Each structure stands twice: as C-alpha cells, then as structure tokens.
C-alpha cells in the first residue's frame, strides 16, 4: 500500500474537519466554561440578586437604580477617576522622559532600561508592602518631604494624601512598561529623517520637537488606553496598603466590587459594579478606535 493510499484511508476513517476541532476542543471548552459563560452570567447577575443559598431573584434595573443613588459607589467612581488622572499622566511622562534619555546607545543604557522594567515584573503585593513602610510617618517619604519643609505625616493615614500615595505606587509599578513601548516606537523613527534635519541645520531641540515628537504620538496614545484600563482595575496595592481607607479615600471600583461581593455577599449589586467597569473600558476602547480612525 502506497503512502497516498494510506492517506486516503485515513481521510475516510477520520474526516480532517474533526481533527481540527479536536485540537481546539480543550481550549474552547475551558473558554466557554470559565470565560464566556461567566461573562454572560455576570451581566445577567447585575439584573438579579443571588443569595449564598443559591436563590436567584430577578430585580430588573433595581441594582442600577441603587448604584446611582449610592454615595459609596459614587465615591468609588470618583476615587478610580482621580487615581487614573494622577497615575496615567505621571506614568506616561516618566516613561517618555526616560525612554528619550536612554534611547541613544551609550555604555549602560541597556542596564538602565533593565532597571526601569524591574518593577513591572514585581508583584503588586510586594510593592504594596514596601510602599506602606515608605509612606509611614518617619519613613523615607516623609523624611524627604520634611527636608523640603513639608510637615511630617503618614500619607496613608491622611484623607487628602492617601489616594495620591497609592497612585504614585501605581506609577512605580507601570512606568517601565511605558519606557519599553516608547523605545520600541523610537527605534522605528528612520535615522535618515534626523540626519536630514541636521543637514537642514536643525539643532537638538528642533530635531526633537519636529522630527521625534510627532512620531511618538501613536505610542503615547496606545499607552493612554492601556494604562487607563489598568488604572480602572487598581486593587492589589489598595488591598494591602489602605484597605480602601482612611474613610473611603482610596475605595476604588474594584475594591468596592470585592467588598460588595465577597465581604457583604451582595452578588447582584457587585455584578452591576462589574458591568459599569466593563462599560468604562469599552468607552475607552471606542474612543481609541474613533481617534485612531481619524488619524489614519
């Protein structure tokens, strides 16, 4: 029997379509069970109430009505937005600055970049533990501030400063990723472009302003989207550093969702918070699409 004949026999006994399906099946079943199913259930749950006993009670829009009248939720929304407004611009500014600084090949440039990326792979819990100590009164942060004449306080116990403090930790954990994204983009700027600018008599500042900076826009835009979505999900550092306190000053959306579901067991209500989070993420993504569409 020739190989062709053997192939033909195999083809009859087991259709190739089934083989492909077989390869996908483990992945697809896991996906249906642990991603797709729960996502649908999560949306449905936000219109119902689920008790620990397992009873599902239809509530319509009641959870959402409660949500918009709940000062706790509105505070969580505000906290999340302020966190994002502090951490995203700072993260991107630091990333852009350090990427431009270490962009050129000089001895040590790669070592600096490696160091900047180290916080990105560090667990958020470890970051939270160390920064709790850094921000404590008498810790390094207040020591530095008092050297500049600011009063010594524990930022994490201050209603005003706790949120900026956790947002700063967010910056520390994320700016290294931004450095990488900006550097990757910078490497695509054709060197001829800059050399041509030199021939035309452009100094370093004009070269930067008119040649390099315009090229950075897509990368910065990408980072705004990614870092905003990331900030919306702030949880781990808040959990270890402040537990939402003092007096709800760092009570973020995901922290609210965690509290309502796994502390208060109000699963339907927490589901509504999850849907709000989803919609916020979706809006950001749609803005991205609309804006990128206009640019190209």
């Amino acid at each position: 029997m020739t190989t062709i004949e053997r192939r033909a026999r195999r083809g009859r006994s087991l259709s190739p379509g089934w083989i492909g399906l077989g390869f996908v099946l483990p992945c697809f079943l896991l996906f249906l069970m642990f991603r797709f199913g729960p996502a649908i259930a999560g949306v449905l749950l936000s219109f119902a109430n689920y008790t620990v006993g397992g009873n599902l009670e239809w509530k319509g829009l009641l959870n959402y009505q409660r949500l918009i009248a709940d000062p706790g939720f509105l505070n969580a929304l505000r906290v999340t937005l302020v966190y994002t407004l502090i951490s995203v611009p700072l993260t991107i500014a630091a990333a852009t600055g350090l990427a431009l600084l270490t962009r050129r090949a000089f001895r040590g440039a790669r070592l600096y970049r490696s160091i900047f990326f180290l916080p990105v792979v560090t667990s958020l819990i470890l970051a939270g533990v160390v920064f709790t100590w850094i921000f404590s009164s008498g810790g390094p942060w207040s020591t530095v501030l008092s050297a500049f004449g600011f009063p010594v306080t524990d930022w994490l116990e201050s209603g005003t400063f706790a949120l900026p403090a956790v947002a700063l930790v967010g910056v520390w954990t994320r700016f290294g990723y931004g450095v990488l994204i900006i550097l990757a983009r910078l490497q695509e700027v054709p060197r001829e472009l800059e050399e041509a600018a030199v021939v035309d008599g452009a100094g370093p500042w004009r070269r930067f302003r008119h040649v390099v900076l315009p090229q950075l826009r897509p990368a910065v835009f990408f980072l705004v989207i990614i870092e905003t979505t990331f900030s919306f999900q702030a949880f781990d550092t808040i959990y270890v550093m402040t537990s939402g306190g003092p007096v709800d000053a760092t009570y973020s959306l995901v922290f609210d969702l965690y509290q309502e579901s796994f502390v208060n067991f109000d699963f339907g209500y927490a589901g509504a918070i999850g849907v709000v989070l989803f919609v916020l993420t979706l809006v950001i993504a749609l803005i991205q699409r609309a804006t990128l569409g206009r640019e190209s």
Partner: protein
Amino acid sequence: MSVVDTITGLTRPSATRAPTATGDPFAPRGLAKVLTHLIAAVCALVTMFPLYAMVVLSLRRPGAIEFPASLVPWDLSGESFARIFATPEVWRWMVNTLVYALVSVVLILLISAMAGYAFAKRRFKGREVMFWSLVSMLMVPYQVTLIPLFILVARSGGVDTYWGLILPGLANVQAVFLMRQFIMGIPDDLIEAARIDGCGDWRIFARIVLPLCKPILATLGIFVFLWHWNDFLWPLLVGQDPAMRTLTTGIASLQAEQIPLSQVFAGSVVAFVPIFLAYLVGQRYITDNAVAVGIKG
C-alpha cells in the same frame, strides 16, 4: 557590582537593540553624556530603592525597625529569614505558588499550542466564529467574570483545592492568540511534506510545529509564570484555608497580622527572589516581548 555584571553579561543581541555607540551619530558626548548618566543613574536608584529597602529591612533583627530606620546594611542578621522558614505554613505557600505557576505554565502552553495549530493550519466548521468569539473576550475585564466564576467554582467544591485555583486560569485567550499568530508564520509546505510522508496531525503537531515554536513557547512560558506567581485576587478568593494560600496572599495576611515588619519583608524577599532570577536569566526575552504580550492576561 556582581548583579550589574550578571545583567549585562546575560543580555544577548536582539532585533530591537539600539545601534552601537560608534554607529550612532547622535549618541551623547561630553557634557551631555555626563548629564545623561547622572539623570539616568538617579532615576535608576529611585526605582531600585523600594527593592533595596525590602532586602535590607528583611535582614534587620526582628523588632529592630524603628524610625527613622537606617538603610545602611550593617549589623545584619538572618533571624527574620530563620523565623519565616521555621513556619511550616510558609513552606506550604511556596509549594502552592510553585504548583499554581508551573502547572498553569505547562497546561496553558499545551492547550494554547494545540488550539493555535488548529486555528492557524486546519480548516473546520466554525473556526472563524470560535476564534473571534475567543478574541472578543479580551475586551471583557476580568472582574466582570469574577463573581459568576467564583460561584461556579465554589458550588463545585473548588474552594481550597488546587483544581479550583488552577482550572479557571487555563482559559487564557491571550496565549491562544499569540500561538496562532506565531504558527501562522510556519510555512504550509513543511506541514504538507510531513503529511505526504504519512504523518498524522498529532505527529505533525508534536514533531514539527512544537519544536519550531520554541521561541514563542519560552516567551509565553515566562510570562504565564510571572502572571501566576504574582497573581493575587483569584488565590485570595479560592485559598480561604491558611494552608491553601499562595505567597502573595500569604504575605498580605502576614502584613495584616501584627508580626515584626522584618519578617514580613523576609517573606517578601522569598517571594521576590524567583521573579528576580527569572528576570536576570530571561531579561532579553521579557523586555523584547513585553511589547507583544501586552499587559497582564
């Protein structure tokens, strides 16, 4: 510094490497170079400071961290580590974390490579619908699925079990997407030739596709390991028994209890060392591919 040497010694040339100093006409020179170094060094020190503090304070005698705590590394003691390692629970957390991370790596690589092969190289009914419904889930924040997922696992008796910890995370859409993209780049001719030689799909997959996928498997493996090693929320929900905690949830619980800070830091160092080593060894892999892999999956 030995750490410095290790990092620079292990870095390998790669596609995204910047041009060498001699080849870059814009490389800083003279005063500009000094300034560049100065600013970069200060920023690097600030970046490293929390990790440095973590290590130095973990080597303080328990109870000796008063304010302002000295960060000069003298009068060091391994007592906090001795106490941490004398706690049976901490060993248990280490084992749990290792099981969670390693089992997840192996299974996610296998499952996503298989799916990636079929999505890239096989035709079957519903392929497009399946693939795009999979990818669309990248848009849905993890927190939306969290509550139903927990209810599902809890009602199936998955709380405080390894399968409850590991199984839901195996549905890693990002991994499937990356595997498919990579396998699409493998020439069809190679697969056709093997088929004519009488290879079945499984042999083509195991003998031809998988070996060619080594670079992407290594990359994905490192990232899946990092994600799971650092994961917090899911282990927090599933591991309610102290014996079923992972290092991250265990350290968070140490932090909440009133145990000496140096011991909390010692535990943190224990959780950090494997990540740090993985980063030293796979640094090029990680930084070159972080752009493609994106953020936490």
